[in-house]
């Protein structure tokens, strides 16, 4: 009973729109503060890594982007499941909003990783297990975006994407684990992630800042996209028209 009523409330686009409106400035301020602060800290104040020199400073953008990109996919699949099971429209809007954000962050993870690889490994790209799985994650995101665009009808698009996101989520552990297995099977060149040991506590603190900043940033942009989507879907309702044309009346 209470669960369903909470769902009902959370599922109401109108309530969500107003609630998220209050949250927005906090998210925006905090995320920018943490991101900017962490980056400046990491770029200019942390000592260089004894093995990698200064190139390790990419970590402050690389690791947050990678982590949030993965988290975003899970969020999307959960939203998809909620949409399919409880027919909650808001979940569909959240799902639609996550796809481009997640894809951008995955792209960022790939790009910063590649740029980091050049000075560290001497090559832009290796077929490391983790790297390969991120590439596949990127493809999964692209698939969802393309599927959504291909449908003309929004409801069908949302449902189809939800199915795909769930199937993908079931597959992600399998993919990740099989790629890991594949990589260790071949035992390729010596290049691979060196493990946590290299990270000093002094280096870790700015990382914590940018990591949490990136999560907040994700939440912020997600709200921005979702709110725009809410307005678009509910454009024929009175409350949306009142909000948009509020000044005129």
């Amino acid at each position: 009973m209470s669960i369903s009523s909470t769902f009902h409330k959370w599922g109401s686009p109108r309530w969500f729109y107003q609630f998220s409106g209050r949250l927005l400035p906090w998210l925006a301020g905090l995320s920018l503060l943490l991101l900017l602060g962490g980056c400046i800290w990491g770029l200019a104040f942390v000592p260089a890594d004894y093995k990698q020199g200064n190139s390790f400073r990419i970590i402050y953008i690389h690791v947050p982007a990678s982590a949030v990109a993965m988290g975003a996919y899970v969020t999307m699949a959960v939203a998809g499941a909620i949409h399919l099971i409880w027919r909650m429209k808001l979940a569909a809007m959240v799902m639609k909003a996550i796809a481009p954000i997640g894809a951008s962050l995955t792209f960022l993870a790939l790009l910063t990783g590649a740029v980091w690889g050049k000075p560290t490994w001497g090559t832009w790209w290796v077929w490391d297990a983790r790297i390969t799985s991120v590439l596949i994650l990127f493809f999964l995101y692209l698939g969802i975006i393309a599927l959504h665009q291909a449908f003309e009808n929004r409801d069908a698009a949302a449902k189809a994407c939800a199915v795909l996101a769930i199937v993908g989520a079931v597959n992600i552990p399998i993919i990740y684990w099989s790629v890991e297995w594949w990589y260790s099977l071949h035992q390729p060149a010596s290049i691979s992630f060196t493990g946590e040991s290299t990270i000093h506590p002094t280096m870790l603190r700015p990382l914590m800042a940018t990591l949490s900043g990136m999560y907040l940033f994700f939440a912020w942009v997600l709200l921005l996209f979702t709110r725009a989507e809410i307005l678009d879907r509910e454009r024929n309702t009175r409350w949306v028209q009142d909000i948009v044309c509020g000044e005129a009346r």
Partner: protein
Amino acid sequence: MPSAGLLSLILAVLQRDVIASLRRGSEWSNPLVFYVMVCALFPLGIGPQPERLAELAPGILWVVALLASLLATDSLFRGDFDDGTLEQMLLTHQSLYPQVLAKTLAHWMMTGLPLSVLSPILGVLLQLPPAGMLPLMASLVLGTMVLSFIGAIGAALTVGLRKGGLLLSLIVLPLYIPVLIFGSSVVKTAIDGGPYMPQLAMLAVFFLVALALSPLAICGALRISVDQ
């Protein structure tokens, strides 16, 4: 006797799809020809040195089989969607699950199975060592079955769309990757003389999981596609 009913339903659907596919011809022959042609392209692209080809053969054979299966997948539900028989499938009081299962199996019998049976010949073309032949066939038999089930999800999601074709690839290719990895490693391990049974067993597990779960996704996707 619901189980007897289910079985006869499955058989009826299987029979219909296989007969239809055999009558049309192009449906089962095209993936085969594609398989043969693209495998024949590779020596032209990467050079004819036998040792190198032998090394690469498992990977190439598997990737191309995967592509052939992928390209054939688009037609899985499209014919039924276009002529309105898909609606009839949705409008029975019997469960959709066995029908979808039977359709996917029929599709596999017309694509994956012939591919697997033909693969030793292409193995010879690509200088695959004899030790790899049987494992190649076995891994393809199991693997293409899994590919068919995964592909069917994508086909069901895109059957109502005019774009079809490459969109399906986009959706389905990332999901194919575990199958590719285990399938090709079966053959490679066999060539190196290692124990390839664990990987084959893994493919069998994938198959069982796909058999049990993918029809659920397919049924859902079909309902969505018809309801547009």
